[in-house]
């Protein structure tokens, strides 16, 4: 089985979110970048397929040279090779079109993407990729097993979960549950050394356009101070929630 894992290069979850150039660009100053958490769960599940079912695992990112350390980290975790599509990831449609080309050219059977990236939160790339390549698609996937060309997946639904069966080629939008938090791997020294020798191929983008254009960012208004209610006066809390906030 040939697996492609999509890796989004995102600001660490604790990053301060600021913008520059008249609020049109994300300010990367002092920001640490990491593998998108949803993608990391997927990558770790891919390692399981590699170890248990002899799958090959390639990681891919659409982005500039600054994303290479993130791809190297994925190689250090255990991916066999990496591909970087050398382009600014304009929007979800653009990224999905680039990935579709990579998937088709490489003949991948399974693509593991994250259900959304934690920066732009588009949540559209996996589904679009599936539609563009005529692959089957399971979103918010929390468990995946593959046997030959048959796949069994569990997906989170509002209020519960459902188990589905489908076939390869398959694209999933993954999240925590694909593996447990405790199964995530921190690259060790050997992995980091090996990652330096592994192939990281840079390819040029197709001429496709995106469909949307980010024009400006805004930060939410500052919050007012919290109203404290004393432990001995919980009546007041009930009354505030009823009369002032009008939520009960």
């Amino acid at each position, binding site marked *: 089985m040939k697996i492609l894992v999509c890796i989004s290069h995102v600001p660490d979850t604790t990053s301060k979110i600021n913008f520059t150039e008249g609020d049109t660009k994300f300010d990367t100053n002092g920001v640490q970048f990491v593998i998108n958490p*949803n993608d990391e769960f997927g990558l770790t599940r891919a390692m399981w397929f590699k170890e248990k079912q002899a799958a090959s695992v390639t990681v891919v990112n659409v982005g500039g040279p600054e994303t290479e350390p993130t791809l190297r980290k994925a190689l250090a975790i255990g991916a066999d090779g990496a591909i970087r599509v050398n382009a600014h990831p304009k929007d979800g449609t653009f990224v999905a079109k680039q990935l579709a080309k990579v998937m088709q050219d490489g003949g991948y059977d399974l693509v593991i993407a994250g259900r959304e990236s934690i920066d732009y939160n588009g949540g559209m790339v996996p589904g679009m990729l599936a539609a563009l390549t005529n692959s089957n698609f399971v979103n918010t996937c929390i468990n995946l097993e593959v046997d030959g060309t048959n796949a069994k997946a569990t997906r989170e639904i509002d209020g*519960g979960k*459902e188990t589905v069966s*489908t076939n390869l080629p398959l694209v999933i939008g993954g999240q925590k549950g694909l593996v*447990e938090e405790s199964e995530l791997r921190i690259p060790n020294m050997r992995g980091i050394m090996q990652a330096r020798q592994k192939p990281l191929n840079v390819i040029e983008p197709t001429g496709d356009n995106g469909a949307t254009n980010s024009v400006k960012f*805004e*930060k939410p208004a500052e919050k007012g101070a919290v109203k404290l209610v004393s432990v001995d006066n919980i009546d007041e809390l009930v009354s505030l*929630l009823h009369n002032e906030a009008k939520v009960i």
Partner: protein
Amino acid sequence: MSVLVYTESDNGQFKKVALEVASYAKAVADALGTSVTALAINANDTSILGNHGVDKVLNVSNEQLKSFNAKAYADVIKQAAEKEEAKVVVVSSSADSKYLAPLLAISLNAGYATNVVEAPASTSPFTVKRTAFTNKAFEMTEMSTDVKLIGVSNNSFGLVENSASASSEEFSPSIPDFKVTIESVDKATDKVTIADAEIVVSGGRGLKGPENWGMIEELADVLGAATACSKPVSDLGWRPHSEHVGQTGKPVASNLYIAIGISGAIQHLAGINASKVKVVINTDPEAPFFKAADYGVVGDAFEVVPTLIQKLKEFKAQNA
């Protein structure tokens, strides 16, 4: 040329988000000077859509569509959009809509904006405001495609009353192969889901252990709320993963979010910040949650929560 809105139902009943997206579609239609067509799949009574500005309902009754299938539903919506020559298609942010919408976007050649929180700021260029960076920022996005697909963020636009009398028309689309088949569903039918809940009661590591969740469930029960938890609580196995909320868990956009024994780490807050009113109960006055909350009680959950339950019961009895 009308605006098409997909109004979701569950067992024949419209979900709350269906009325919210209908309200949103009406705002877009007004801005464009056109009408609203809703697509309803196996819904019992569509007349309520008229209260929220829908002019026409395309009614699909089809046994094959009894349970959700993203590919088939996306295809049915596409056929409706083409029939109506819709330039704008509106869906919600439910798990099902987020699943089908990217497929629909590709088949309609549409640009797709997710997590949209307001009516379009402008229709030429078509510009919408959406959340990004997990609620830490808003992004203004221009959509340049001929057809636009908008995913409205839950509980952001609200329900708007707009009396129209929706006409209803049977619609019989062709149904494609499913490709992904449901084997089993595991869903608590007696509980409010985090996605649909007006109120969410959430517990953190400060509650010490799973044996202490009785009072959380009781509080949720009194309020008709859904229960949720912080990430470590689900990682420790105190509560199911499906209750984990935050940046790497489920998003919450309720009217009221009550955080009990939760410190308010940035990743937790990011996922629940879209909630309108936040209450924190925590022993530590320095806990970061107090900076994000509207109301707070500095105190021991094991004292405060039982009192709160008691007071709420009295309040309910008086206001019944």
